[in-house]
């Protein structure tokens, strides 16, 4: 059975749990697959390590956590160091190129672009960096269609911020494709 494992990792406050939720929602509600999202975090609201894990499958999902990661997003150097070791051979690692400068080596594909800066400068609001990252992960993993992922994004954000998030998502999607080409 196809079991695909994603991990969104970084620091508390970066919106990674939300990004994971939207990815899983896209798969389970809009794509017609099954998905489980789980997380671990410290007692702090901001700072500290944060990770959100998503398992996507065509059939029922038993163990809800990552066993061997297919795709990893690392938004801090600490996260990249800590989690890149259980990336599958042939898996994909997405990093923010400004924050992760010591790039982990391994039998996986690394895609890098300045995620937070894209949100800040190209989209105009740093707060949507997680949606830029999500757009990139959707492009790199191919587990859900661009349309379904966008639907999940739009159904998860306040109405006033729909355009902002739409732009962030597209920007992440395009930049990841360009960076991985």
């Amino acid at each position: 059975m196809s079991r695909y494992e994603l991990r969104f990792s970084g620091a508390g406050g970066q919106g990674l749990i939300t990004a994971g939720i939207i990815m899983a929602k896209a798969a389970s509600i809009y794509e017609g697959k099954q998905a489980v999202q789980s997380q671990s975090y410290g007692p702090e609201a901001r700072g500290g390590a944060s990770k959100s894990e998503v398992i996507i499958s065509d059939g029922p999902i038993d163990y809800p956590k990552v066993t061997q990661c297919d795709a990893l997003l690392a938004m801090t150097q600490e996260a990249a160091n800590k989690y890149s070791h259980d990336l599958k051979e042939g898996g994909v690692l997405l990093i923010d190129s400004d924050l992760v400068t010591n790039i982990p080596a391994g039998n996986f594909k690394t895609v890098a672009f300045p995620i937070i800066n894209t949100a800040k400068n190209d989209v105009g609001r740093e707060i949507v960096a997680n949606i830029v990252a999500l757009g990139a992960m959707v492009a790199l993993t191919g587990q859900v269609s661009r349309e379904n992922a966008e639907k999940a994004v739009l159904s998860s954000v306040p109405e006033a911020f729909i355009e902002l998030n739409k732009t962030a998502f597209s920007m992440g999607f395009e930049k990841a494709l360009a960076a991985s080409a």
Partner: protein
Amino acid sequence: MAKKVAFMQGNEAAAHGALYAGCNFFGGYPITPSTEVSEVLSIELPKVGGKFIQMEDEIGAMAACLGASLTGAKALTSTSGPGLSLKQELIGYGCIAEIPCVVFNVMRGGPSTGMPTGPSQSDVMCAKWGTHGDHATIALMPASVQECYDMVAEAFSLAEKYRMPVHVLPDEIIAHMRERIEFREPGEIEITPRKAPTVPPEQYKPYDTSFGDVPPLANFGSGYRYHVTGLNKMQDGFPTTKAEIVQAEEERQVRKVDACIDDIVTFEEYMLDDAEVVVVAYGSTSRSARYAVNAAREQGINAGMFRIKTFWPFPDKQIKALAAKVKGFIIPEMNLGMCSIELERCAQGKIPVLGIFRVDGEPINPEQIVEKIKEVK
């Protein structure tokens, strides 16, 4: 019409399961990792004419639930370990005064404040023996977000049917993870109403056993007046120390559940037909176990899983039957061997019971279980 679906957390699903069952009262005190239950109900209960009260602490929250239930409300509280410890005095009161309500307790590390954001399964004994004295306990163990919804709904029925507090015990993983769920249609899960008195107020006794081991319960405010106490009581609700009455009443309050154990106990059997090694698991750990059983089967080992859905009353009959035919039990749990004690008791030394016990806040991974299965083989 297509069913309403949503992608949500176990805690959120539990709140919706409660609403499905007709829950119209929540008395609580927020605590990680159960707070989302109160968050949802604080928004949803007022919409259906229900009451949401955040009390001064967990003891008050439990007391509020008992009081609300006596007026006919379907009452829920949610909490986690430290809160469960505080609620015990009033849970005992609910047991002896026979007041239906549901306690949704999300298990985190302990004792005391422990590890608030980490998963655990270490409240299973606290749910049973946390309050002093002999009493029946019903505790359900959801292993998915859908089961959080379903089991909370079922817990309300069990609470009314047996006139007692009923526990639902997810671990933090189940409570916080998100999955797609289906909202149940009316009638899909049986909702048992409270057994109302058939006699006029002047003839009513709150513990009248001529109506069976679970006497009808009159709602305060409906014209029926009676006495409620934490003391051992007579059929009319007033205290007594008469030996024969106390003995009979205590026995009845345990018997009312024990005699119906086959109606209450639920479980799932996975690949047990030809299993030689059986992983007994509950909650999120059963998901690791299912993965492990599949992995072991791929390696040619006849493994299976018995998933405990009703932890209390414990499925003695099923476990004993398995112990008579398989080579060994594996029990993975996020505590230092609480269910293991029950398995040892049922296995009576006939087969080995091998535990995998983790209390470090990390889930038990399937690999650990596969390795342990091989030890039996």
